[in-house]
């Protein structure tokens, strides 16, 4: 048994193909790397989204910083122009209309806007700003004489000034305002394009990263799948090998049991027929010799008696060996008588009394079964007598239409079947299994042992 298990172990070790430590490390590193890559890609995407948002906000703010003051400026100049008209048209002496202070406040506003205007200007923007400045200067020039006029003078000149200067000026302001609007919308479009371009570049980077991650994942998965499939095939192959060798082992042990039984039978027959016969004849002759010796010749009589006693002992020994090898009662008297004989033999030799119980056992059951049951009982009783310190043992044989069962129980000290399992028990189990039977062993330290074998009968 030990040799066999060693052979199997080395066989497994020598054969490659099973996951080695190195391979496991590679797998671990690969999957770890993939995970790391995925985490990096995720973090990068998050970072990019925020970056994109900030950038967009920045661009929009910059644009606003330029377009806002320009629009404010143009509307302020427009209002300025409007006020001039209002001033010219105010004929009512009670309500003066806009006064000089209003104009100076408007001028202060416009000047402040101009001062605050960002220095970094694009050419187009600068042109617009310059034209606004020009409009503003023109307006100043237009207002200064008007303010110095008296009410009368103003009334006389109002229509002329209005038609010749104020209204054309207004049209120019409006035109400039429209140009600003146009520029503004152009700037907006440019900004959007800029944002889109940066977005596209960020997206491309993200896509590249994702592609790398996905490709790596795909390669790794494919490699793993292929490896797993190979592993599965390998396992299947090993399992079949194992099943095969197990079957072979069983066949071998069955052959061994058969061979043992055959061998025992032939040796037993040889002993019984050849040696036993010669010894029997010898005994007969010695008996006759003893009868022929005159009773007064004591020295010869003593010799003859000695020869006789040696011959008898030898006959006894040979008979016991033959019986151990092959119980002739199995052939002479049948199974139950043989079991009863076995029980009495054990009772005679040991301190354990054996009782054999049986009911209606057909002697027509196959020879294999008889031998198996006999050996089972023999082994069980010998074990019990040798190890269990039992006082009583019971052998029970029962037969139904479809099966025959035999059990051997004792009231000995028992044992733990998980820990103790001798070769004898293994041999019994093997014999029983060979005939398609089931073998059970129940034992507990302190509460006896019960062995049972059950065989399905081959035919009813």
């Amino acid at each position, binding site marked *: 048994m030990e040799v066999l298990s060693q052979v199997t172990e080395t066989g497994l070790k020598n054969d490659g193909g099973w996951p080695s430590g190195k391979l496991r490390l590679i797998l671990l590193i690969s999957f770890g790397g993939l995970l790391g890559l995925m985490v990096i890609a995720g973090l990068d995407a998050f970072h990019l989204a925020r970056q994109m948002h900030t950038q967009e906000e920045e661009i929009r703010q910059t644009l606003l910083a330029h377009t806002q003051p320009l629009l404010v400026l143009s509307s302020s100049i427009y209002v300025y122009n409007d006020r001039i008209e209002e001033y010219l048209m105010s004929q009512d002496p009670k309500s003066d209309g806009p006064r000089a202070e209003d104009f100076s406040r408007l001028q202060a506003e416009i000047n402040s806007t101009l001062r605050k205007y960002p220095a970094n200007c694009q050419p187009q923007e600068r042109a617009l700003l310059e034209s606004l400045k020009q409009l503003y200067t023109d307006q100043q020039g237009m207002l200064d004489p008007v303010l110095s006029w008296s009410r009368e003078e103003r009334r006389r000149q109002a229509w002329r000034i209005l038609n010749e200067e104020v209204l054309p000026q207004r049209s120019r302001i409006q035109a400039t305002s429209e140009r600003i609007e146009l520029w503004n919308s152009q700037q907006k479009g440019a900004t959007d394009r800029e944002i889109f371009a940066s977005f596209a570049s960020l997206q491309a980077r993200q896509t590249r990263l994702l592609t790398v991650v996905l490709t790596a994942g795909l390669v790794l998965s494919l490699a793993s799948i292929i490896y797993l499939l190979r592993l599965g095939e390998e396992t299947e192959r090993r399992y079949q090998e194992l099943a095969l060798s197990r079957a072979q082992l069983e066949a071998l042990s069955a052959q061994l049991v058969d061979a043992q039984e055959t061998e025992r039978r032939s040796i037993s027959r040889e002993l019984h027929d050849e040696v036993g016969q010669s010894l029997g*004849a010898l*005994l*007969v002759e010695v*008996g006759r010799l003893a009868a022929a010796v005159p009773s007064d010749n004591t020295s010869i009589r003593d010799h003859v008696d000695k020869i006789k006693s040696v011959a008898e002992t030898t006959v006894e020994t040979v008979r016991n060996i033959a019986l151990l090898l092959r119980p002739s*009662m199995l052939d002479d008297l049948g199974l139950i*008588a043989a079991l009863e004989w076995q029980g009495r033999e054990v009772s005679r030799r040991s301190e354990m009394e054996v009782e054999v119980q049986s009911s209606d056992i057909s002697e027509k059951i196959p020879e294999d079964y008889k031998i198996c049951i006999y050996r089972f009982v023999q082994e069980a009783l010998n074990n019990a007598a040798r190890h269990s310190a039992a006082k009583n043992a019971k052998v029970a044989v029962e037969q139904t239409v479809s099966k025959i069962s035999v059990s051997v129980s004792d009231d000995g000290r028992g044992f733990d079947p998980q820990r103790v399992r001798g070769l004898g028990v293994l041999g019994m189990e093997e014999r029983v299994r060979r005939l398609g039977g089931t073998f059970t062993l129940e034992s507990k330290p302190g509460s006896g042992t019960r062995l049972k074998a059950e065989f399905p009968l081959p035919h009813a």
Partner: protein
Amino acid sequence: MNSIRVLLADDHKLIRAGLRLVVDQQPDLSVVGEADDGRQAVELAKSLKPNVVVMDIGMPNLNGIEAARQIREIRPDAAIVMLSMHADEGYVLRALGAGARAYLVKDSATTDLVQAIHAVAEGKSFFSPAVSKVLLEDYVRKLRRSGAEDSYDLLSPREREILQLVAEGKSNKEIASLLNLSVYTVETHRAKIMQKLNLKGVPELILYAVRKGIIS
């Protein structure tokens, strides 16, 4: 004096020759035939009409037990002496069950054979001393280990008397006339004996008697 006709059946020629020498030395015994196996023994018993068949228990083709049963059926008046290697209850009981009246262990066959043949020819039983010894030992050991009482003490003197006569092979009618009892009374006693000793059938009763040394 009529000589007793003996048939020898044993598959071992050497043993048979030895037995034949022993039997032939007796003036009142004559060997009328020899058989190699059980089947031949049955045939020869039928044709040679022996008074006594000396037969080995373990023979090929038909074993001694089966052969004895068949011979007793064909020729009820042929007495059978069984030879065996084993002084064991199982063998003795089955030999008795098959109708044998004497049981000899082969070791002592030459010493006891003549005595056994004479005994069965007269309708008596005979057992090798070794057999009685083994049976008694088994019985005593069993009693000692189980702590049971010897059931023989339960029998009345009359029952013991009848037990012996039954074991010796006497019929109810013979016992009744011997003891001056009615056949019915003998039957009742017999049933009681069987019950008290927990025995099933005459073979077990004979075995019991041998064991107790009531007969030999």
